[in-house]
C-alpha cells in the first residue's frame, strides 16, 4: 500500500474562476513536504481540498490509497489527517486543556482518557503550564503551539500546517523548526508545511512544491528549488528582494 496523502490532477473552480488547475502533490509519511507560492496561489485551497473542506471540481485525493475526495472534514480528521489554520482558530471560550480534549472527544475518547492524552500532549510540546488558561487570551506564539497540539492529538498520520510561522520572531521560528522535526521523528506523521518564511521551508523540507496561480510550477528538493530559474522568476521576482537574499 502507498503510504502517502496525495492529490492527483486536482482542479477547483469557483464560478468559473480557476483556483487550482490540475494540481498533483504527494505528502509521504515521516517527511516534511513544503508548499510555497505567492499570495493567492491557491495554497490554502489545496489544504482545504486535502482536508475535506473543499470538494475538488475534478481530480482525486487519496489517503494511503483510499479515495477521500468528498468525505466531510470531521471524517477526514477521524481517518488521520489533521490541520491547523492560518488564523489559529482556537476555541476561545474553552481552556487550553479542553481545546485539546475536543479532538479526543471528536475521535471518540471518553473525557477522562481525552484529558490524560491532552495533558501528555501539552507536556510533550512543552506548554503544560498553560493547561488551565483560557485559550482566548493566549499570546500569539502559544496560540500556535496549542493549535499544533490540538491537531496532533492521537497521532494523526498526516499533519497540514497552514503558515505556522506567520508573525513569529526568528528565534520563535527556530523553535518551531525543532518542534516540526520532533513531530516527524516521534509522531512519525507526514507533514505538509505551507509557509511564507522561505528560509524555514528550505531548511526543514525534504521536498518542496511551488504553486503559482493555481498550478504547480516546480517540484524538487530544496537545492533544486533554490536553483530553479522558474521559481526565482515567478515567485521570488514578485516578492521583495530581501527574500531573495535568503536564497
Amino acid at each position: 500500500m502507498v503510504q502517502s496523502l496525495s492529490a492527483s490532477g486536482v482542479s477547483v473552480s469557483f464560478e468559473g474562476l480557476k483556483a487550482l488547475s490540475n494540481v498533483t502533490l504527494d505528502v509521504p509519511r515521516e517527511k516534511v513536504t513544503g508548499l510555497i507560492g505567492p499570495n493567492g496561489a491557491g495554497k490554502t485551497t489545496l489544504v482545504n481540498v486535502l482536508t475535506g473542506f473543499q470538494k475538488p471540481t475534478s481530480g482525486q485525493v487519496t489517503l494511503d490509497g483510499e479515495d477521500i475526495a468528498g468525505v466531510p472534514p470531521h471524517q477526514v480528521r477521524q481517518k488521520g489527517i489533521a490541520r491547523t489554520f492560518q488564523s489559529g482558530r482556537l476555541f476561545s471560550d474553552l481552556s487550553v486543556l479542553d481545546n485539546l480534549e475536543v479532538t479526543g472527544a471528536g475521535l471518540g475518547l471518553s473525557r477522562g482518557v481525552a484529558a490524560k492524552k491532552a495533558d501528555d500532549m501539552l507536556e510533550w510540546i512543552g506548554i503544560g503550564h498553560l493547561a488551565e488558561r483560557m485559550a482566548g487570551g493566549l499570546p500569539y506564539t502559544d496560540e500556535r503551539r496549542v493549535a499544533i497540539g490540538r491537531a496532533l492529538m492521537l497521532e494523526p498520520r498526516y499533519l497540514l500546517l497552514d503558515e505556522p510561522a506567520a508573525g513569529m520572531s526568528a528565534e520563535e521560528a527556530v523553535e518551531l523548526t525543532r518542534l516540526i522535526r520532533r513531530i516527524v521523528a516521534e509522531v512519525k506523521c507526514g507533514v505538509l508545511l505551507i509557509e511564507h518564511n522561505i528560509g524555514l521551508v528550505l531548511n526543514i523540507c525534504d521536498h518542496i512544491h511551488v504553486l503559482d496561480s493555481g498550478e504547480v510550477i516546480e517540484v524538487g528538493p530544496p537545492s533544486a528549488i533554490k536553483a530553479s530559474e522558474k521559481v526565482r522568476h515567478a515567485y521570488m521576482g514578485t516578492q521583495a528582494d530581501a527574500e531573495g537574499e535568503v536564497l
Partner: protein
Amino acid sequence: MAERPSILARTWSTPVILIAILAVLALAAYFAGSNPFNQTIIEIFIRVVLVVGLYVFIGNSGVISFGHIGFTCLGAYMTAWLTMLPAIKKSKLKGLPDIILNNKLDYGWGLLAATIFAGVAAYVFGKVLMRLSGIAASIATFAMMAVIIQVYSNWDSVTGAQSSVVGIPIVRTVWPYFACAVAVVLVAYAHSISRSGLALRAARDEATAAAASGVDIPRERLIAFVISGAIMGLGGALFAHSVGVVTPDTFYLGLTFITLSMLVVGGMNSLSGAVLGVVVLSIIIQLLRWLEKGVDLGGATLSLPLGVQEIAIGVVMIAILMYRPSGLTRNRELVWPSKRLSGGTKASAPADGKTA
C-alpha cells in the same frame, strides 16, 4: 506531573449550589404554607425546567431557538390526554384512540410520556433542522413551532382546537415540581460535562476548527436538541398539572419571550445563568404583579397598568444586552468559593501581548 482531577471532581459544586438554591425555594413554600406563594414557587420550578431545557440546546450550541416552546405544547397535551377522566375526554376529545379515551393514568406517567413524546418529536424535527446553522436555523425553529401550534389549534377532535382543555388533574404540592427541576439541572449538568457537550461548545466557538478536530457538528447538535426538546416537553406537562388547563395559545410567543429573556438575563452559555435568570426575573415579575393588583399606601392605592410586566422584562433584557451581554453570570458557572475550580483561572498575565 500530578494527576489532574476528573472533570466531575472539578465542577460538581455547580449543580450542588444550584440545587441548594432550588431547595431553599421549596422549603420556603413548604413552611410558608400559603396557597398563592406555593403556586408562585411552583411556577418558578416550571420555568427552571423550561429555561434549563433551552440552555441545553442554545447555551451549548450557540444556535438561538425560537421554537422550543412548541415541544412544551406537545408535552402539555400529551399528559392531558393520558391523565384526564375518560368521561371528559369522551365528550370533548372524541378523536383520541380508544385506548387513551377509556383509560386514565397517574400524572407521573403523564410526565414521563410527555418527556419521551417531545424528545421523539425533537429528534424528527432535528434530523432536518440541525443541518442548518446560524440565523437560518433560528428561523427554522420558529417555523417549526408555528407548525406545531397550528396543528394543535385546529385539530378539533383531538386537541379541542382553540378552546381550553379543562379537567387535567391539578397537583398542588411543591415537591414533584422541585424533583423535576433538580432532575433537569442534573441532566443538563451531565450533558454539559459530557464529551458531546464539550464538542458542541467547541463548535459554538469555532465551527470550522471543531470539524477539523473530528467533531460531527450536526450529530452533536441533534443530541442536545433531543435532550432539550424532551426537557421542554416535561416542562409543558408540569405546567398542565399546575393549572389544570391548557390551550395552544399558552405555548406561543408569550412563553417563548419570557423563557428566552430569562436565559439571556442570566447568561446564555451557563447552566447557572439559566437558573439565576429564572430566579431574578421571577422576583421582578412577582413584584410587578403585586403592583398591578394595587398596593394600599395609607388611603391612596398605587397600581400599575396591566402589561407592565412584559414591558419591564423587555427593558431588563435590552439593558442586559447593552451593558452586560454575557448575562448576570457573565457566562460563568457558580462554583464553590475559595477553591480554584473553574477552567477560567487567571494565571499570571503574559508579558508579551497578543499580536495581530
